[in-house]
């Protein structure tokens, strides 16, 4: 087929235009959130002192500063990386903020808690459950975001997949945080970060295979 012929066929298919990719991604994110919440309530549910802790316990509140602080720039990153001409740009600086805040929180924790108690803080009561449930809770949002990204044209499939993994991992972590009774920033830095990292790495792997166009 000659290029001019191809153009004729393409023009005849003009009506097939899809919704803008940003809209598709936001819809997918919304659907992913709803599904993840349903998944969370069917598996775990919020801890019994949630209402009190969310208003009175700064360490508990910080878990959401950290996880949502990752989720928001990760969402912006996904929106950017979904396009062929997309680059991380300034969103990567916002992504560095939560780890910096976490480091600050750990320093405060180290001053507030005697050093012979640090190991107890870091290991908490259910470290393995945390690493297990964050990936489980991120499955639904990851699937939704991946589906939307496949409508896009990411210049770097692995990077786009990793960003989708980071976003879903952060969503899974924020949900799990409402159930989890381990609130130390040291616990957060090890087990939450491990859970989110696993999902991001899997995201990069899946992305490099499924997001080529």
């Amino acid at each position, binding site marked *: *087929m000659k290029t*001019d012929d191809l153009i*004729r066929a*393409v*023009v*005849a298919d003009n009506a097939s235009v899809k919704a803008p990719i940003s809209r598709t991604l936001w819809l997918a994110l919304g659907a992913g959130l709803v599904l993840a919440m349903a998944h969370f309530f069917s598996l775990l549910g919020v801890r019994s002192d949630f209402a009190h802790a969310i208003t009175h316990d700064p360490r508990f509140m910080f878990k959401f500063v950290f996880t949502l602080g990752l989720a928001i720039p990760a969402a912006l990153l996904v929106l950017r990386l979904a396009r062929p001409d997309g680059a991380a740009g300034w969103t990567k600086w916002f992504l560095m903020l939560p780890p910096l805040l976490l480091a600050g929180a750990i320093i405060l924790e180290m001053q507030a808690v005697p050093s012979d108690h640090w190991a107890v803080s870091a290991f908490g009561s259910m470290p393995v459950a945390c690493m297990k449930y964050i990936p489980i809770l991120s499955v639904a949002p990851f699937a939704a975001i991946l589906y939307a990204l496949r*409508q896009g044209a990411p*210049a770097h499939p692995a990077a786009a997949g990793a960003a989708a993994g980071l976003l879903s991992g952060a969503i899974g972590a924020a949900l799990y945080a409402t159930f989890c009774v381990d609130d130390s920033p040291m616990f957060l830095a090890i087990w939450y970060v491990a859970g989110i990292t696993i999902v991001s790495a899997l995201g990069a792997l899946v992305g490099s295979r499924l997001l080529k*166009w």
Partner: protein
Amino acid sequence: MQDRRARENEWSQLMRAAISGDGVAYQRLLNDLSRVLRASVRRGLGGSDLPASDAEDVVQEVVLAIHLKRHTWDQSKPIGPWIMAITRNKMIDEIRRRGRRTEVPIEGMLEFLEAGGQDDAMHAYDAGRVLNGLKGKNREIVQAIAIDGHTAKDVADRMGMTEVAVRVSLHRSLKTLSDTYQEKPAT
């Protein structure tokens, strides 16, 4: 520089019109684009001793990608960098398929929008093998529309199908063609 901006603005306008349903604008845009793309793809691949017919394959691949992914262009931004990114991506794919070192001169690409439309015989080059990826009715429909220049409605009447079915088939075929390029084995 002024030229390039004027051309980009025109392309942006044509694409906006095309996305809201203007087929004439779309035809003009793609004709103009393919001429410029042909020049820049050949220049870009020039260093890797690929035959000119391969450059034309890349042009077709880029045209298909622009078409199938046009909803990823942010209409508030100039269209030039978006087209350039797609072109670069497809050129790198082509070089990788051939097992050559990936060496697409990005700097040269930046000027591609200024490149004149050197018209030559390549627009008539027949990348026939691509059509072989389609089968049966799908192939007949693409051929009738692309090569014989029939409208979807004509084809529908002639083949005893609904116009919608013809359009669905055409769209699916274009996707298949785009995938066919990706799977094209190195020759």
